[in-house]
């Protein structure tokens, strides 16, 4: 008999998931019902909203196409070649997706901007920069910067999962370069293609901070940005909510479509690169591979490098002795820390519930409860924070609540990522130890400490880091509440960029970069020490 009843350990997670879903629903409803001056046909027939819908699709399509198509030869080259600094490069690849958007935008501006490195190079020859980074150009550049390395890593994983035997077989059959790619490697890439492309498309489609910083006017506006403008500029809350629902619908249709055209794909969670002993080498293929690798290097490294070097300038100590900087710094740390903590705790409880169902084969139920909690992925943070404030505004002033609201919304936005990174390890733990714990009577706190915490410390802390970095770079939850007296580092950076204080902005960008990368490095080094201790 399948045990149908819900176990006690599942109750908090189930309540949390339902709570989160209701919460999102209530926030959107609060916006929709705020005042009743609405005319849906007006919006439907509005040329501007049609334009931004088309533009959202257009830019997301181009961004995805560029990221994915370029990622194929690059990941292929990376899978075949070993070179100095490859590990570091791949580590950097892993960080671009979670890097605070504005830090990357700053790095890109420092190179491709009107007064950037490239422009001064052109000016040296008395030439003008042939393109402007503001508008579609900049949006595409930034999206490729974020997503190309991400796609590369995923493709590399797919290529890494090709068994050695198949490489040997390819050699045995004399399959070289193109034919080997066509018959051995391409099938593995193709399996991942819909998922990767779909995910990247979704991320670009709902892109906010990038478009806000580099859009350069109403012409290049996405739905996500229009939601922000409707709420903040026009105070048209209903339009904001309707646009949010419109975006959720489009994303849902897209998600279903991707599910349909691709079967379920299992990626081995361990990332291991293929041994490069099985390739037919030639001068041409060497050149081919290394030109791709150098090309990516040129895309990814200079902006980060520019953030580093331009951050150390004569304004460094001026910024560091500015009280406003420290206020923003304090707010950012508080928000990121608590949002991260809440996100990981919620993820933990929700997974306790879902893995219990997975253990007894009720995968559908487990998927649903996890899905409820990830709905925020396509709901703009600004809509949630505004709705939440409208619900709570009877109880206090905006400035008193904004910190807590921003923490709550950031926690929600980090939750899907925390869920994703904890799901596999927690399920494995249950599969291994569920019966053993039952027979030894290890429950609740004992179970948490001796079984989950002791073995999952690393993934838990990694999830915490991920949530922390996502929250520290977020601009969308804070966007409504930010004022010059309540800001976070990204908002402060945005204000500095806006008022053209490039040197100060550079310092803040550097601090953000160091914070985001630093957190990962610290956690990783803590675990390195642990490993050494074990061996003693």
């Amino acid at each position, binding site marked *: 008999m399948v045990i149908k009843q819900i176990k006690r350990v599942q109750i908090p997670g189930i309540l949390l998931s339902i709570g989160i879903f209701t919460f999102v629903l209530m926030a959107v409803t609060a916006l929709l019902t705020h005042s009743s001056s609405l005319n849906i046909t007006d919006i439907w027939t*509005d*040329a*501007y909203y049609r*334009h*931004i819908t088309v533009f959202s699709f257009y830019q997301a399509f181009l961004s995805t196409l560029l990221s994915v198509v370029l990622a194929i030869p690059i990941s292929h080259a990376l899978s075949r070649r070993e070179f100095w600094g490859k590990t570091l490069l791949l580590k950097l690849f892993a960080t671009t997706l979670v890097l605070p958007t504005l830090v990357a935008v700053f790095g890109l501006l420092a190179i491709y901007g*009107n*007064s950037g490195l490239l422009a001064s190079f052109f000016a040296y020859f008395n030439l003008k920069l042939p393109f402007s980074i*503001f508008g579609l150009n900049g949006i595409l550049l930034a999206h490729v910067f974020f997503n190309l390395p991400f796609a590369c890593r995923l493709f590399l994983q797919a290529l890494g999962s090709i068994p050695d035997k198949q490489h040997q077989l390819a050699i045995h059959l004399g399959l070289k370069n193109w034919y080997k790619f066509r018959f051995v490697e391409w099938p593995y890439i193709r399996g991942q293609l819909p998922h990767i492309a779909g995910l990247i498309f979704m991320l670009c489609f709902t892109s906010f901070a990038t478009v806000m910083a580099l859009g*350069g*006017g*109403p*012409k290049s*506006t996405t739905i996500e940005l229009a939601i922000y*403008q409707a709420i*903040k*500029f*026009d*105070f048209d809350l209903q339009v904001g909510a309707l646009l949010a629902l419109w975006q959720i619908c489009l994303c849902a249709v897209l998600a279903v479509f991707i599910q349909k055209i691709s079967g379920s794909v299992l990626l081995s969670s361990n990332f291991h690169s293929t041994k490069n002993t099985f390739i037919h080498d030639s001068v041409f293929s060497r050149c081919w591979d290394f030109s791709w690798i150098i090309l990516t290097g040129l895309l990814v490294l200079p902006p980060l490098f520019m953030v580093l070097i331009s951050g150390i300038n004569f304004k460094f100590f001026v910024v*560091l*002795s*500015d*009280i406003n*900087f*420290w*206020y923003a*710094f*304090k707010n950012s*740390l*508080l928000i990121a820390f608590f949002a991260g903590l809440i996100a990981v705790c919620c993820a933990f409880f929700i997974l306790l519930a879902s893995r219990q169902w997975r253990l007894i084969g009720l995968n559908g139920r487990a998927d649903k409860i996890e899905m409820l909690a990830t709905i925020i992925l396509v709901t703009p943070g600004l809509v949630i924070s*505004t709705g939440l*404030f*409208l619900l709570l*505004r*009877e*109880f*206090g*002033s*905006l*400035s*008193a609540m904004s*910190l*807590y609201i921003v923490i709550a919304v950031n926690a929600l936005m980090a939750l899907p990522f925390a869920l994703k990174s904890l799901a596999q390890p927690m399920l494995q733990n249950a599969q291994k130890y569920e019966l053993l714990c039952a027979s030894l009577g290890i429950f609740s706190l004992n179970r948490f400490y001796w079984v989950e915490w002791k073995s999952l410390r690393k993934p838990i802390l990694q999830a915490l880091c991920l949530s922390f970095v996502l929250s520290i770079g977020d601009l969308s939850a804070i966007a*409504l509440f930010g*004022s*010059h*007296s309540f800001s976070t580092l990204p908002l402060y950076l945005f204000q500095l960029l*806006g*008022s*053209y*204080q490039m040197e100060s902005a550079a310092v803040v960008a550097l601090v953000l970069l160091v914070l985001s990368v630093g957190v990962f490095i610290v956690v990783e080094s803590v675990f390195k020490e642990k490993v050494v201790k074990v061996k003693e």
Partner: protein
Amino acid sequence: MKKKITALITFATLIAMPALAASPTPEKLTVYTYSSFASEWGPGPKIEAAFEKSCQCDLEFIALDDGVTILNRLRLEGKSSEADILLGLDDSLMATAKKTGLLDKHNIDLSAVNVENGWKDNTFVPFDYGYFAFIYNSEKLKNPPKSLKELVEQRDDLNIIYQDPRTSTPGLGLMLWMKSVYGEKANEAWKNLAAKTVTVTKGWSEAYNMFLNGEADMVLSYTTSPAYHIIAEGKEQYVAASFSEGHYRQTEVAAIVKSSQHKKLATQFMNFMLSDSFQSQIATGNWMYPVTDVLLPTEFDQLTLPVKTLSFPSKEVAKNRKAWTREWLISLTD
């Protein structure tokens, strides 16, 4: 040094919980205003000091991006707003702001106010005014356009920066200016202007800073802006272009919030606003014209005065703002 110490203290309280216990403080008056008014180079700090000396209270400016943002913030917060006073809306927003029902009537003696056509409004009190204008660097630009039509229709050699009419009062001002000059044909005019636009910024500060950094030939600001360069920097090259169609006038106003718990103090501030100690800060602090007869610095004599003043009644703006903004948006995206 003092700043460094305060920074260190903040750093030390980093780990402390967000809600710090409030110690008993004197009565606090919260004023929402725009960032350039409250900034250290704006008139805010001096006005704060002068008022606090006379009232035994704590005056706090909450700096928001621009005039429209101030209004939207109040609408979002509704009756639970902390604001006692909104300072920095302008005449074109008055009718919209009144309609929210969140503002209170004042009973301030307006006899000192000296503006064109007088001032009779019972909700809003004006504190300064000015005329929108495009500013250029006369050392770089030798033949500035003589009219708005020349700029829009003929001068393809120029590029400009202006502000978003949805977020910023100067941006809204330009929209009304274009509307008063072009009327029904504004759509075409916006398209022409779009070709010369470097970027549309959210607020005045961003636009003006970009202009000073050489990102554009002209920027939308006020006829009084050159006074800043003359008085504060001793630079004479920044000039407001005089347009033959006339310039759109902006009167900046303040109002008391209905839900304020400090009405008495708020009224005191509104009266203070029309006093000499406030008004004398306007010309060289906010770089606008004061609304009372305080003495102006002599350098203001050098400024271009508009040949003709353009203005829409606030009610008409309230009625058409959404449609006109939409017209602007669509002509930019087509």
